[in-house]
C-alpha cells in the first residue's frame, strides 16, 4: 500500500508541475499583459513602463522560474487588480468556495446514493422513475436558471431565505441545492448501475444462499463494491465544484474562488489567474489521489494495477 501511495504521489506532483507550466505559458498567449494592466486610459509610454516594472520584458522561462520559486514559498505575488497579496485574496475567497463545494457534494451524495440504491433494488418502480426524472431534470436545467427559480420561490414569494450574500449559514442553503443538484444525476445513475450489476453477481447470490440478512447483503457486500466508481466520480465532481461554481457564485453573489477566477481572466489579472489555476489543479490532483487511495482500500486488487 505504501509503495502504491508513493507512486501515485510522484505522479501527482509531476501533473501539478506540468499544469503550472502550461497555465503560465497559455496566459501569455492571450495578449500583452502590460496593456491589460495599463487599462483603458494608458498611452504607449505607460505600457512600456509597466512592461519594465513588472518584468514582462524578460524571457518567459525566467519569468516562470521566478514565479514557481515564489509559489513554492506560497508567495503568489500581488493581484494586479486588487493590489493585495494573491495568497490572502485566494485564502479568503477559497473559504467560501470550499464551504459551498463541501456542502454541495454532501448534498449530492446524501440524495444521490440512497436514491440510486433504492432505484436499483426496485427497477422500473415508481421511485426508479422518479429518480430518472430527477436526474434528467438536473442535467437539463442550467444552473443560473435553477438558481433564479429558487430565488423567486424562496426569497421573493415565501421570503424565508436570503437571495444573495454569504453572511450566515442560511445564505448557503439555496446555492448548495443548486450546486449539489448539478452533481447529483451522474452520481445517482452510477450508483444505480453499479448496484444493479453487483446485485446480479455470483457472490451476492452466494451471500444470500448462505443466509446473510438483506441489509448485510446490500450494504456490506453490494454497496461496498458498487461505490468504487462513485468515489472516483465524486472526487472529480468535487474538484469541478471548487473551480466551476462560477455561475452559482455569480447568481448568489458569493464571491468565491470560482467567480474570482472567471473575473480575473477577464481583467488579465495574471498572478491571480496563475495561482488559482494551480490551486484548482492541486485540488483535482489531491482529490483524485485520495479517491485512488480510498479505492485501493475498498478493493485491494487495485493496489497491484
Amino acid at each position, binding site marked *: 500500500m505504501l509503495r502504491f501511495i508513493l507512486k501515485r504521489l510522484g505522479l501527482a506532483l509531476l501533473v501539478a508541475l506540468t499544469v503550472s507550466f502550461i497555465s503560465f505559458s497559455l496566459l501569455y498567449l492571450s*495578449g500583452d499583459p502590460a496593456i491589460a494592466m495599463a487599462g483603458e486610459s494608458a498611452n504607449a509610454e505607460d505600457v512600456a513602463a509597466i512592461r519594465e516594472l513588472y518584468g514582462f520584458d524578460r524571457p518567459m522561462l525566467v519569468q516562470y522560474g521566478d514565479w514557481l520559486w515564489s509559489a513554492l514559498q506560497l508567495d503568489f505575488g500581488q493581484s494586479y487588480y486588487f493590489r493585495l497579496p494573491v495568497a490572502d485574496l485566494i485564502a479568503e475567497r477559497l473559504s467560501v468556495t470550499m464551504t459551498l463545494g463541501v456542502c454541495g457534494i454532501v448534498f449530492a451524495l446524501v440524495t444521490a446514493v440512497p436514491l440510486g440504491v433504492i432505484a436499483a433494488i426496485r427497477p422500473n418502480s415508481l421511485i426508479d422513475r422518479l429518480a430518472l426524472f430527477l436526474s434528467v431534470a438536473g442535467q437539463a436545467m442550467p444552473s443560473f436558471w435553477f438558481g433564479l427559480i429558487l430565488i423567486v420561490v424562496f426569497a421573493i414569494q415565501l421570503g424565508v431565505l436570503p437571495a444573495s450574500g454569504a453572511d450566515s449559514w442560511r445564505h448557503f442553503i439555496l446555492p448548495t441545492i443548486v450546486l449539489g443538484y448539478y452533481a447529483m444525476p451522474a452520481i445517482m445513475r452510477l450508483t444505480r448501475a453499479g448496484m444493479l450489476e453487483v446485485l446480479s453477481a455470483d457472490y451476492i447470490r452466494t451471500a444470500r444462499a448462505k443466509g446473510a440478512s438483506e441489509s448485510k447483503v446490500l450494504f456490506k457486500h453490494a454497496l461496498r463494491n458498487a461505490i468504487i466508481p462513485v468515489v472516483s466520480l465524486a472526487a472529480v465532481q468535487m474538484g469541478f465544484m471548487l473551480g466551476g461554481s462560477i455561475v452559482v457564485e455569480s447568481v448568489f*453573489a458569493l464571491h468565491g474562488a470560482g467567480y474570482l477566477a472567471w473575473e480575473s481572466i477577464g481583467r488579465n489579472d495574471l498572478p491571480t489567474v496563475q495561482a488559482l489555476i494551480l490551486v484548482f489543479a492541486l485540488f483535482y490532483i489531491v482529490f483524485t489521489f485520495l479517491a485512488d487511495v480510498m479505492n485501493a482500500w475498498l478493493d485491494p486488487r487495485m493496489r497491484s494495477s
Partner: protein
Amino acid sequence: MVAAGAGWADKANDTLRAAFTKELESVDSYFNSAREGVVLQRAIWDGLIYADPQTGEYTGNLATDWEWIDDTTLELKLREGVTFHDGSAFNADDVVYTVNFVADESNGAVTQRNVNWMESAEKIDDFTVRINTREPFPAALEYLSGPVSIYPSDYYEEVGPSGMGLEPVGTGPYKVVSVEPGKRFVLEKNENYFDGPKGQPSIGNIDIRTIPDVNTQIAEIFSGQLDLIWQVPSDQAERLEQMDQFTVANESTMRVGYLAMDAAGRSGEDNPFTKIEVRKAVNHAINRQELVDELLKGKSIPVHTACFPSQFGCSQEVTEYEYDPEKAKELLAEAGYPDGFTTEFYAYRDREYAEAITSYLNAIGITTDFKMLQYSALRDLNMKGEVPISFQTWGSFSVNDASAMVSQFFKHGELDDARDDEVLEELNIADSSTDPAVREEHYRNALQRIADQAFWAPMFSYNTNYVFTDEVSYTPTADEVLRFHTMSWN
C-alpha cells in the same frame, strides 16, 4: 459583524442598501478607473473645487479661492477648520503631499491623465498652496473638482495606496466603516462634515454589496434586501417601471459610442477607409435615431461630434450625416466599390449595439467580419494600427471638457487613426489657451474638420437606469455619479 448586521437593516435603521455590479479593485481613488470608484470617491473624499452637477459652475470646496498667477501656476486658499475622518486637521501639507505623490508617475496612479497635467504643488503657508502645471492647462479646475481628491498626508505616507484601499480616510460626507475588497463597502455619515457645497449627508449608513448578476439584484430589491440599484438594462428597467413599486429614473451619461476608422491607412494603404467617400458612406449608413429609440432608449441621444455635447468646447455646429442608405451606396460606388467590400469589424463591449451597427453596414454592401475582443486585446491591435474599423466608447471620466475626449484621440497618439495635422494644430491651441473664447473657437474648428473628413462616425450617448424603492428620494445627475450625500428617505 457590522456588515453582517447591516444586511438586514432598512429605513428603520437608517441604512441605505445599494448594489454594485462590478468588483471594484481598490477604494483608493487614484488606483481604480471604475465608475464605482468615482461613486465612492465622491462620498469619502473632497476635491479642492466643486462643480455644480447641474450648471457646471465652480465653487470652493476644500479651497475657498483660487487665482492663476501665471499660465502654469494656480494659487489656492484653503478652507480652515476641516478635519479628516481620523481626526487630523486638513491643511496645505495634505494638498502638497497628495499632489506631489500622484503627479509622480513612478507612484503608479492608474489614470495618469487625471493627474499628469500637474507638475508639483508647493506650500505658501498653512492654508495657501500653489499647483504648478506642466504646461498651460485650462481644464485644471474641472480636474480639481473631479478626480483629484485630497488625502491626509501623514496617514497616506504611512499606509500607502494598499492601506488607503482597505481603510480609506478622507474629509468627505461619509466615512468608511469597513471594506471587504471587491465585495462590500459600509459607510456612515460623517457627523463632523464641514458646511461645504456638497451639503450635509442625510442618510446615516450606506451598505453597498457587489452583486454581479443583475437578475439577482432585481430579486433582492423585490425581496426588500436592497433599496437602490443602477445601471439596470433598459428592458428590465421598463418592466420594473410598469410594476409601480419602484422609482425608475433614467439619466444620460457622458459615455459616447462611435466608430473609429483607419483614415490614415495604418492597417494598409489599400484600406477602403482611407477614402473619404467610404467614411462618409459609413456615416450615412447608420440610423442613429433608430438605435437610440430601439436599443439604448432613455435619455440617450444621437451624437454627431467627437465629444459629449455638454462638455466645454463641444461645438454642435458641425456637418451632420443624415441616415441615407442610397446615398451611402452611391458614395461607395464613387470610391470604387460599387459592389461593396469586406472588412474586419472590431468591438469590445455592448455586442448588441455593435451587431446592429454591422447590419446597417451590411445593408449598403460593407460585409463585416465581426470580431469581439477583450478590451486589452483590441487596444493592443489599435496601438499597432491594425484595426480598419471598430465600435468604441469613451466616458471622459465625467470630465466636462471637450479635451477629455477629442484631444485623447486626435493628437497623433497611438490610438489616432486620422493623424490629421490640421486637427492637431487646432487642438494644440485649444488645449493650451487659458482664454475660453479662444478654446471654444479652436475646438469648433477641430470638430468641424473631423466631421467634414468623417474621420469617425459618432453614434450616440449612453444612459443609465436607476431603480430605487419608494422610500428613497434621489435625483440622478448627467455625469453618472451616484451621490449618496444627496439622497434622503421619503
